[in-house]
């Protein structure tokens, strides 16, 4: 049977639309489900009180703080290394065995299950370096985990900067480093920031690797050497051990809101300060 071009066009359109709608529908129903169940749980007390009675009552303030600091440590440590590697790969070397090895390592790292990072962090940071279960151990482990993402997105962003910008930089008498920092990086910044946001999302959402490295203490952390329980871990334990589904939903809802806010906030920043020239 032959289908004429018009019909096949229609069928294709139909299928593509179905696929797209299905994806949106699934996404929205998950988010809606969690927000509907979770938002009523969020109150001033929920945000400011530490968990009580294993999380059955009280709030999740210590988890919020723990999540933010673990993520901050990871991003602060990983971003300079990631961007540095990306600059090295794009600007300071030609394609060679070395760059292929670096790229291959980064890609392999990106594919490793997070629990493996957790195990490594546990053995290396927690035990060998005697950092114990702490925000620092967790943050450093997360940093290693997100490094490949940051390298790859930064590399792509730097590669899309027109070669011409570099030439103009050189032609105006800038050194190579000046050209990179003053012309290439600013133009690549939206892409780099995107990679960082993606990484933040991964840190915030991580459970397995964090339990193994940052622990699951409910106390309010007092320094980066304190153990902590991030929101995702808190949510996992509340749900897994049937402690309080209500508070689990509340935590999940807050987690989603946090990630949405981060995304919107960063995008606004990027649009406001960086993409000004567009």
């Amino acid at each position, binding site marked *: 049977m032959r289908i004429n071009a018009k019909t096949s066009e229609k069928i294709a359109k139909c299928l593509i639309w179905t696929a797209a709608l299905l994806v949106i529908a699934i996404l929205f129903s998950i988010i809606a489900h969690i927000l509907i169940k979770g938002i009523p749980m969020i109150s001033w007390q929920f945000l400011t009180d530490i968990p009580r009675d294993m999380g059955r009552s009280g709030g999740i303030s210590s988890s919020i703080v723990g999540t933010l600091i673990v993520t901050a440590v990871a991003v602060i440590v990983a971003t300079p290394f990631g961007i540095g590697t990306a600059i090295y790969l794009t600007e300071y070397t*030609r394609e060679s065995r070395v760059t292929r090895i670096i790229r291959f390592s980064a890609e392999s790292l990106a594919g490793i299950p997070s629990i493996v990072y957790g195990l490594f962090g546990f053995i290396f940071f927690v035990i060998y370096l005697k950092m114990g279960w702490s925000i620092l151990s967790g943050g450093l482990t997360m940093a290693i985990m997100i490094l490949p993402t940051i390298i790859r997105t930064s590399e792509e962003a730097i590669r899309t900067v027109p070669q011409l*910008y570099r030439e103009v930089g050189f*032609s*105006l008498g800038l050194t190579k480093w000046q050209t990179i920092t003053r012309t290439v990086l600013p133009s690549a910044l939206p892409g780099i920031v995107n990679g960082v946001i993606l990484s933040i999302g991964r840190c915030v959402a991580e459970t397995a690797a964090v339990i193994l490295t940052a622990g699951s203490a409910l106390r309010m952390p007092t320094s980066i050497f304190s153990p902590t329980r991030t929101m995702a871990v808190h949510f996992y334990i509340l749900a897994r051990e049937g402690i309080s589904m209500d508070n689990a939903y509340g935590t999940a809802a807050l987690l989603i809101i946090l990630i949405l806010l981060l995304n919107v906030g960063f995008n606004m920043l990027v649009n406001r300060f960086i993409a000004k020239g567009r």
Partner: protein
Amino acid sequence: MDDLMLESGQRAKIKTDAVNLYYGNFQALRNVTMDIAECAITAIIGPSGCGKSSLLRLFNRMNDPIPGVRVEGKILLDDVSIYDKSMDVVALKKRVGMVFQKPNPFPMSVYDNMAFGPRHHGIKQRARLDEIVERNLSQVALWDEVKDKLKESAFDLSPGQQQRLCIARALAVEPEVLLMDESCSALDPESTMQVEGLMEELAQKYTIIIVTHSMEQAARVSHMTAFMMMDHDRAGTLVEYAPTAEIFANPKDKRTEDYITGRFG
């Protein structure tokens, strides 16, 4: 080789002597010897791939980052060899500015584009920067058009305005020589005329070297014209170099004549 010499009384700003340029094993230029007059417009014409741009980019060492690049012979700027080890390449680029084929402002405001070079050469005072921006935008006849849009994105300007902005941006670091690599080829005829008029004006202060695909442009604006061609092995050579009027009215070489009468290329 009297056709390589300038007319009497003209000082040579740049001299090249038996220049060979290699990219790895490929020879891109062979035995190029020419003197380039100060405060004049020199046009380099020739068919695609003849090494025009490669030659132009030798004058500010723009070819340096290309893998396997090698230069033989001498290139002198004010009688100082620019390929000497002691040459400060950053200082050279400051003296020899460049305008590219496509308008390529940075994704910043008009003002920041203009202040970009000076800022990186250490000028920080707002008043001095303001003065540099205004003076150089006026030099390219852009000041009146953009003085109310200095804070707006350079991408909002028309392509012709963008290209004049790029010329002004190059001038803002106070070069002595301006290299223009097919700088009108992406512009509409009216903007082209504007930029050409500008070149003639700038030639009173700057030594200008243009690479162009348009023989009409070379004939219209330049004082000296160099015609280049590829050898049998694709290395570019200088076929004929003479005052523009002469080369177009009375080419000495058969190949030049064929090219400018449109028989090939």
